[in-house]
């Protein structure tokens, strides 16, 4: 009996946005008289942090502090249409809609500030800290909240903006498959190191080294959580998970987490990851979708590492100890 070590690699790309397009999302922004901006959406945060990233994009484009931008979502009576959170489309679609809305609102904000300061709006810049000032003369400034108050009470103007993003629907040519399915492609490469117990068939993932190209990381810590969570799911898909362990036989379907296997905290591999940024021309500040892709490259990297370790090529997921053992038995019987 021995513990056999191996290393495997996999490289993948992943499409950003709903396949074939035709999936609009809207955003509305308005300034309140409290010095804050509200971004109104009907988009869903699944736990990935959409509410945070959308506020970041809004704050960046408006030129105001992050903690003065609220995201109000998701009520279909108040929020404009969003196709939904899926297909790695959220940051790309909704982010673009917010940029468009924020540009319109920012233009009104600068117009009002220019009136108040008696300058040309083209000469004004935002400092990102809550002030608007003449470019090169920080002392000639006005607070954003005072601009909001002046707009409402003095000029009778709304500081607001409307945004939408839509990639038009692409029809597939049925004979050839010619189509325009995506908005951008993100990329990943994983190198997996595993240890295979040749007595039990059990596989332990020792380390996952990942390089991801995601356009632009909007929030590095949240990109990190996507990477770690996704790689964990990839590892789980590779080695543990299924609702039909003997597919296509329907038997042995798990009903709860004691029967549905997933790696526990002790099974999580050491992970080292790096991000490369090649901004997407059509992405908000260059962003591509990262969410779905992070699960993909670890799966084949682990499968390839298992082959490298013990010479068993498992062609079906998940790669259970039973399959590895059967493969080892076959090798030994040759």
């Amino acid at each position, binding site marked *: 009996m021995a513990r056999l070590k191996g290393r495997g690699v996999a490289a993948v790309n992943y499409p950003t946005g709903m396949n074939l397009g035709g999936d609009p999302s809207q955003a509305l922004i308005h300034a309140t008289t409290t010095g804050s901006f509200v971004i109104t959406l009907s988009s869903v945060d699944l736990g990935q942090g959409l509410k945070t990233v959308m506020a970041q994009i809004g704050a960046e484009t408006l030129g105001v502090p992050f903690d003065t931008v609220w995201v109000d979502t998701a009520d279909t009576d108040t929020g404009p249409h969003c196709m939904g959170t899926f297909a790695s489309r959220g940051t790309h679609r909704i982010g673009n809609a917010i940029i468009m809305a924020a540009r319109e609102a920012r233009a009104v904000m600068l117009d009002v500030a220019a009136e108040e300061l008696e300058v040309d709006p083209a000469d004004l810049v935002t400092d*990102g800290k809550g002030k608007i000032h003449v470019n090169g003369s920080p002392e000639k400034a006005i607070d954003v909240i005072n601009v909001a108050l002046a707009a409402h009470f003095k000029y009778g103007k709304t500081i607001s903006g409307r945004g939408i993003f839509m990639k038009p629907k692409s029809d597939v040519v049925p004979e050839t498959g010619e189509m325009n399915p995506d908005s951008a492609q993100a990329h990943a490469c994983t190198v997996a190191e595993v240890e295979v117990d040749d007595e039990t068939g059990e596989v332990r993932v020792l380390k996952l080294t990942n390089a991801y190209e995601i356009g632009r990381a909007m929030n590095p810590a949240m990109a990190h959580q996507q990477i770690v969570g996704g790689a964990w799911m990839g590892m789980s898909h590779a080695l543990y998970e299924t609702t039909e362990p003997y597919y296509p036989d329907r038997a042995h379907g798990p009903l709860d987490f004691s029967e549905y296997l997933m790696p526990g905290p002790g099974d999580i591999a050491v992970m080292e990851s790096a991000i490369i940024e090649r901004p997407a021309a059509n992405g908000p500040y260059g962003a591509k979708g990262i969410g779905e892709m992070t699960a993909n490259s670890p799966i084949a990297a682990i499968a390839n590492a298992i082959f490298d370790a013990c010479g068993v090529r498992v062609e079906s997921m998940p790669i259970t100890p039973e399959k590895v053992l059967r493969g080892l038995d076959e090798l030994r019987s040759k």
Partner: protein
Amino acid sequence: MQDLETIDTRFFSAEREADLDVVGTTVPRVDARAHVTGKTQFYEDVSFPGMLHLKMARSTRHHALLKKVDTRPAEKVPGFVRALTHKDVPNNWYTILRLIGVEPNDEPVLPEDRVLFQGEQIVAILAETAEVAGEAASKVKIEYKDLPAVFDVEEALKPGTPAIKPHGKNYFVYEGHHCRRIRFGDVDQAFKEADHVIEHRYQSAPIEHAPTETTGCIVKPEGNGRFTIYSNTQACYFTLDNAALIVGLPFNKLRVIGGTVGGGFGGKVDVTVEPIAIIAAMLTQRPVKYAYSREEEMQVSSPRAAERIYIKDGVMKDGRIIARKVTLYVDAGAYSRHSPYGTTKAAAHMPGPYSIPNVWVDAHCVYTNRTPSSAMRGFGVTIGDFALESQMDRIARMLKMDPIELRMLNAYRDGDMKAHRKKAEGCALVEVMQKAAEMTGRKLPERFKKMSSLKPVGSKGEGI
């Protein structure tokens, strides 16, 4: 907060906008503290007086005719309020993607004369508590006449296998074709010219999303003819529009409130709980809750489709892949849901991130008598990547080449024509491999270190 990933800005530095204030920085998540201190409001934290609970009597058979459905034993359970069958559903047949033009409507909200999978909902039971609803649902007497069931995708497509679907075919029809096709170049000719032809079969099994929060909703009649739906859907308007079409109300009579979800992973883009809960609220004029148990989440809610993928490659001695033929089967289970879309996505993804001059893909969306599969993180791509990247490893071993170098030789780069005839842009496959090689201490030969996705216009690029 510490930035835990290294962002390596040596790559593509000319294309990167340098001075951003908020974007690209780690600000703390706005909802993190509320999540971990239990202050976040999820749909289930809403509760109304008089709220009813809905549970389903479900099929115990894989494929059967419904001979008799008797709810009388359920009605005797104290706390039972009402049973709903297909007769109570105004527009019983639907398919989720009809909103983007997919047809036919192939799924009943509640089945009429037959069930197509074990676990399929048959009768909805409304009761004063969830426990009573569950008990009453278990007492519904259903008589079945079993029909032959089909579980294997290739078996389902064989001539002579009985059609399990009303449209008479065990597959989704793509504009008159029995599958989604890609045709690019001439694979048969290229196989003749190839030094090696290598073919393998790959397979996956269905996978559960396993969200912390199971699928569910609460529907409240507002007294003005409108209904508010508190839901953990991933797509509020998808849910609203599909639900309105099924329940036969104008869209503006429904209001969806959501946006905070305890994990989706694609499992909450089906519209399974809301329509029947709305109908229940319409008929009783009481708030109704329909939430999946963990067991239902595991066995009844749509999993990731199992896929079977055959890849046949024509390869030259120097590592160039000159042909790739892919025959792919997506096991949609009993109903379409999002699988026709996922199958097209799978076809578009082939032949992976490589420039291969001859590509042939037949991607089949196949119906079988199992829990309908649907969207899940990366569906159409995740299993394809397992197959493609296992195949790449086999080619590298067959040629005794380094697996990264083989991939770099074949990597797609800016300006390359993909098999679906869209010109590649924004490529970075070469660079993620260069980075991963560097991180793992693998020294690449000079020509691969210098390789770039930014292939100059008009050039054939690096390498071969």
